[in-house]
């Protein structure tokens, strides 16, 4: 019985997938961009002129109807990968994205092996 209720709740939770925002949120984009002339600050956090200009550029692009992803691609073309805080998945960055999960997998296998040894005996 309880299990059924939980399943129903989980199904209700699926509604949340639809709750995604359709228009790109400029504040989220600002946070994901590095202020190129500052030390370790995002565009959202910086008071520099560069950041102010970039904010206008991003807002313009959103007005043009560009998606978040398209805006990042545009900025990477212009300034290089240094500008985005989330490195795009490509050949150079593949290790960065894969290694953590690989480590998770190996760790899991080691624990399985340690625990299994016992049950075989």
């Amino acid at each position, binding site marked *: 019985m*309880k*299990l059924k*209720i*939980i399943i129903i*709740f*989980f199904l*209700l*939770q*699926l509604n*949340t*997938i639809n*709750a*995604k925002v359709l228009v790109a949120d*400029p*504040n989220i984009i*600002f*946070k*994901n961009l*590095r202020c190129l002339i500052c*030390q*370790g*600050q*995002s565009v*959202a*956090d910086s*008071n520099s*002129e560069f950041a*102010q200009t970039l*904010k206008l550029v991003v807002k313009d692009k959103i007005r043009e109807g560009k998606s978040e992803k398209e805006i990042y691609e545009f900025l990477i073309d212009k300034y*290089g*990968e*240094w*500008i*985005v*805080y*989330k*490195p795009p998945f490509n050949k*150079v*960055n593949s*290790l*960065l*994205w894969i*290694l*953590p*999960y690989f*480590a*998770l997998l190996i*760790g*899991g296998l*080691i*624990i399985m092996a*340690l*625990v299994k*040894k*016992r*049950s075989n005996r």
Partner: protein
Amino acid sequence: MLSNIGNSILFLSVLLCFSIIYYSFQNLKTNKDSITKIIFQLCVLQSTFIIISFLTLIAGFLISDFSLIAVYQNSHTLKPALYKIAGTWGNHEGSLLLWVLILTLFSFFFLILNKNHSKNYRIYTLIFQNILILGFLFFLLFNSNPFSVISPEPKEGLGLNPILQDPALAIHPPLLYIGFVGSSIYFSAAIASMLSNYSGKLFAKSIKNWVLVSWSFQTIGILTGSIWAYYELGWGGFWFWDPVENASLLPWFVMTALFHSLIVLEKRNLLYFWVIILCILTFILSVTGTFLIRSGILNSVHTFANDPSRGIFILIFLSLMIFTSVFVLFKKLKINSYNVNFYSKETFVLINNWFMIFYLITVMLGTVYPIFTEVLNDSKVSVGPPFYNTVIIPVVIFFLFFMSIGPKVRWIKDNLKNLNVILGILFFSILINFLIFYLFKSYSLISNFIIISSFFLIFSSLIDFVEHFKNHSIKNYSRIISHMSFGLLVLFIGLNHNFSLEKDLNLKLGEKITFEGYSLKFEKLYLKEFKNYKAIIGEFEVNNLKDNFNLSLYPQIRIYENPNTLTYEASIKTGILKDYYLTMSNIDRSDYYNVKFQKKPFMIWIWISVILISLGGFLRLFKNEKKNY
């Protein structure tokens, strides 16, 4: 004058290190069960000397003795006394002396507090700890001497970086240093344990309190840094995945893994070599972090004026440490057969370690990856918050579930008997999440899972707490508090993330703007003189249109003269349910000011959760004290 005192004392401390090491080896050759008196006396002397040298440097700062380069570069006669004192460790040289001070004090206390452990083990620990002290003393004397003189003596100092002119400078670095320099003692103890064959349960007993001390302080140290960044840097966030923050988090992950594994070693005599590896790794990561930051390889808000020669020194030292420990480890390593059941507490501790190592690898990779791409591929990449959030957050959900169930499972073997309770808690957690979601505001699927899993952990811990209370058992309160607070931490971070409101506005004096249930009016702008800076202060009136609630906020632009810097001070109104956060900055060639308004829910609860997490550590420490000594 002070320079001479400081230098002679440091030089004498070097001699003391050598004599402690010499007498320790002499002591090893004898068959006596006790440590000779002379070693104790030398250690007392050593600690006293290092304390005096540290006080000498503080005195230098306090009386503004500008013949010392460190004082000249980082102080000014007009600074309030608190910042003069705190300025002692607000620079590379001074902070390194603090580093040596903590190394020495831990060495001394480990020697005198571990009387009922084997002599050889204690002596070896002392030897290795003194080698570490010696290494850092050499570093101080030959590369980063805080007592170096400048002549002719300047009339006035250059002043302290305004961002550092904050009461938090007085507590944040020392707390953090106790954490990660404190980890040196179990690095030394781990090597000593292998060399003296003092392993297993006794070894676990001898270091567990030291691990707890460093972990608890590290936690509080990270927290103070986080709070400081929140109000000082004006970004409105509390964690930025900045390289220095990561450097403090890496040892924290390993320490956390370590004291969980230590419980298994103490209770079941398993995982000895794994514990050794974690001991060694903690301190190596602490030194590596220092190396990356001080050498200037990684840039961050914490960068002191850096100098590559420092980097080389630390790198050589680090390599020696790694080489020695790996060499000893491989010589002694035995692969034991393990005896672990699938459903037992041991398995869950292993699972804790599994996740900790995953966090460690992710954060470490993210921190150093840009260095590698730049060197190997000549491409500059930035790894920032969105990377860590994407990789880590989904895994945290599972971690929280394991963390809820693990502590209730018995040692050796247990059966899954309380499935009904677990399902009940899960049901309740989903229900509450569901209410928040539909009553207040919808958020993403992953946020749903985060909030469900954190409630799951909180409720499980609460039930645990009630059961313990009924049984009048005080055994596990510390663990319950820490685990529950971790659940609270994740919950409040999740809510904070989803219910924050942020507005970036350009306003002119007298202008009023209305947005999302709030109105903001730029009332006044005036200049005020303070002791060590001038400030342009803006007065803003925030109006919550729904509750008709008014409040005034006063963000500042500060103009410091020594050194000449502009800083932006946020104005924060902290409340039980939410913080209001406002920053203001001028826009060149314009009457407009860039104003950032933020509503940050539950900020204070994030801080409280972390305080409670470390409180758990301190409570466990007191309990251990009562039991053992």
